[in-house]
């Protein structure tokens, strides 16, 4: 039963991530939606698959390795894209920008 709960949660998070990427105003806020919702949704769907599948134990661990790699790689890529976008001159919309004020 708990696996369908994870599955439902993952689907809702995936859809909300897509909605966020479509609706947010600039690239940094879009990165918020993309990174968090993709990581959370992918991890919960993979955990659901790992619980349901009737494979041997070690294959279930492979799904968890994939989830762990996603959780490790995705924030790094988001950080790199945000830093690159700021260095290439895209101004963030918002109230304050300490990063540009400090001369980076």
């Amino acid at each position, binding site marked *: 039963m708990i696996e369908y709960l994870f599955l439902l949660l993952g689907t809702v998070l995936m859809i909300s991530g897509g909605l966020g990427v479509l609706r947010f105003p600039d690239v940094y806020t879009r990165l918020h939606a993309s990174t968090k919702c993709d990581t959370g949704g992918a991890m919960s769907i993979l955990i659901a698959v790992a619980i349901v599948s009737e494979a041997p134990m070690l294959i279930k661990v492979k799904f968890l390795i994939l989830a762990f*790699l996603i959780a*490790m*790689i995705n924030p*790094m890529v988001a*950080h*790199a894209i945000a*830093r690159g976008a700021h260095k290439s001159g895209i101004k963030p919309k918002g109230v304050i920008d300490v990063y540009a004020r400090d001369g980076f």
Partner: protein
Amino acid sequence: MMMSNVVRTTTKMVSPFLVTYSIYIMIYGHLSPGGGFQAGVILAVSVILLLTAHGHVVMERKIDESQFKMIEVAMGVGILLLVSGGLLFGTMFYNYVDRGTFGLPFSGGFIPIFNILVGLKVGAGFMVVYYALTRWSEDD
């Protein structure tokens, strides 16, 4: 030019596991999908990740372009020798090594050896292509 601290440390933490994974795909190429070419691609990806994050100057202390060229040529010659060894038994590509039992790593005759050679050759070849593409833009 080096990228930021976070990118450098994460690529350092991930790349040894990627190299191990590519060698797994190489050795088990005759038992599972994948094989030499895919394993070579992952090997090249893991080295290019390090190269992108750390820059050329840091990486040249460990390994550089001439060594990749040497590996590629040596593996090409090795493949030719391995394949033409079949001429002693009849035709080229004749599987003259002991086959072993099905399903174990030491089986399939020379196909695992062939996969290892192809994987190393493809990885080194991709590295040479990457160096050739970035030579005019990487000034560090």
